[in-house]
């Protein structure tokens, strides 16, 4: 009896979450898909030669329908779409994960400062966040990328802005509920500096909503990044970014619609996997929320 109690106690939040998550079929399917995609994206660098197989043109093989030789067919200049999709996962995943990470760090810092100190700092940070929130994120990104010029780094920065506002809001809301708790008061009483309290006590206690938001935001950001590439201001050609591939296929919609269909399906599958995982994580981290 005693040992069971000890076992229950010793189970950390992470293992408890994992135990609940394992029961959610959708989340596990999403997780497996993402793991496979990440491995494939990493491996594609070793399997394919970028200059000849990814961006190299091969006109004799142009516009071939999906077959056993070319699983996803070839595009208007004879490039293997399957190879480009795998290689393109590097762009889509790293851009979205990267911009969410930048947004996460800035958002958490700003949100924690706003929530912890309140007053003027809170007013300034949150009013700016409100304004950015009112403008659709795609529009913010369009403005930033067109002003700074289209490059992968600028795209990353542009997409991180809306992620940052979202994290700032979540962190602020969580911090405000935690701020009055006794353990914060005691940390204060033993003379811990504010930044250390925020870092050691406040942020770890509002991690759950943030983790869920990270998963869901990576999905939205993949769509946003591909949208910008579709508009022609994302990753510059001829890089195999998914949105850019889709955009290139527009001129062949009548004769070779698969050039458009396949990248879209891949984007959808990836975002779907992230959404399934995010929903699963939300249920696993906060069982009360489950509906």
């Amino acid at each position: 009896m005693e040992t069971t109690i000890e076992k229950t106690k010793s189970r950390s939040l992470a293992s408890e979450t994992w135990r609940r998550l394992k029961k959610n079929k959708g989340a596990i399917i999403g997780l497996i898909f993402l793991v496979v995609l990440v491995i494939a994206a990493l491996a594609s660098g070793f399997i394919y030669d970028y200059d000849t197989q990814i961006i190299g043109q091969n006109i004799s093989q142009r516009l071939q329908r999906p077959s056993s030789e070319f699983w996803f067919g070839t595009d208007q200049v004879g490039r293997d779409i399957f190879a480009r999709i795998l290689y393109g996962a590097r762009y889509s995943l790293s851009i979205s994960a990267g911009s969410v990470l930048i947004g996460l760090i800035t958002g958490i810092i700003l949100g924690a400062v706003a929530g912890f100190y309140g007053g003027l700092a809170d007013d300034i940070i949150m009013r700016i966040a409100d304004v950015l929130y009112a403008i659709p994120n795609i529009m913010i990104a369009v403005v930033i990328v067109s002003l700074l010029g289209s490059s992968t780094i600028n795209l990353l920065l542009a997409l991180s802005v809306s992620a940052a506002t979202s994290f700032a809001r979540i962190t602020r809301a969580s911090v405000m509920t935690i701020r009055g708790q006794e353990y914060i008061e005691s940390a204060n009483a033993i003379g811990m500096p504010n930044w250390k309290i925020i870092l050691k006590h406040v942020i770890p206690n509002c991690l759950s909503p943030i983790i869920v938001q990270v998963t869901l935001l990576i999905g939205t950001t993949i769509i946003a990044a591909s949208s910008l590439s579709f508009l022609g201001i994302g990753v510059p050609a001829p890089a195999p970014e998914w949105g850019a591939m889709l955009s290139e296929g527009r001129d062949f919609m009548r004769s070779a619609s698969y050039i458009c269909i396949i990248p879209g399906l891949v984007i959808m599958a990836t975002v779907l996997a992230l959404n399934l995982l995010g929903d699963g994580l939300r249920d696993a981290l906060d069982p009360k929320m489950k509906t």
Partner: protein
Amino acid sequence: MWKYILKRLIQMIPAILITSFIIYFSMNLTSGDPAMLVAGEKATPAQVEQVRQELGLNDPIVIRYLKYMGGMIRGDLGTSYVTKQDVFKTFMSRLPATLELSFASVLIAVLVSIPLGIYTAVNQNSWKDTAGMIFALFGVSMPNFWLGLMLIVLFSLNLGWFPSSGRAGFQSLVLPAVTVGLGLAALITRTTRSSMLDVIRQDYMRTARAKGASERRVIYKHGLNNALIPIITVIGLQLSNVLTGSVLAETVFSWPGIGRLIFDHISKRDTPMVTGAIIMCSILMCLVNLVVDIVYAFFDPRIKAQYVQK
């Protein structure tokens, strides 16, 4: 109620000031030398300087901002560098197309999502619920512009039912509105379902059934009325995306709306047009948010009571 609306209108002023300040400065500090753009590539340095004088670009940026705001109060947002047309007039000429598309998309979204959300909630944990939720999950995971392209492939290239681009009458509205509407519908379905699930277990629902009200009346009158607030909130929040964020749908379908206007002029570095259009959009958004808040009061007597007391 009128007092409340007036109060909210006054509160809009600082929000618009902050927005216009951020947009004006970021646009003007980063978009290079407009005088070069206006004078043209072949202009001599003297001509460029003359244009700079005419446009008042030699003034410090703060002075220029104050002048700009002064003009804005009179409905003057300046002249486009590219088309040489009045920004405000151009914006207003594009507004009907955007409003038409937004209204149609929201209508489609509401007509699909609210019944579907209620249906899935009432049949919670059955296959009907799963099917509805899978639809919603696919809807939020799908890139909007891709859905638009797929609709073009199917309904205009293969079946020839609807035109694939332009704005000419009802037929041309269908595909863009479905594109924007379905993405929105997915989100509202999820909210409607979870909001209905919260309400469905309440005591007053049981009371309504006990007093003999029909199931239909229980769900729509007692249930939906109480579940509406979060649903309206989500629709309100999404309206900003519909209004100005439909740049993708507008691109796919060559729809002459505001999103497309801003996008086209950003790439031409037309600072007055972009600044003016974005500021107008944010004013529009503030008004939409006000309308959403008034709609709350209309649907929820508890909120209405608060306004009356004030």
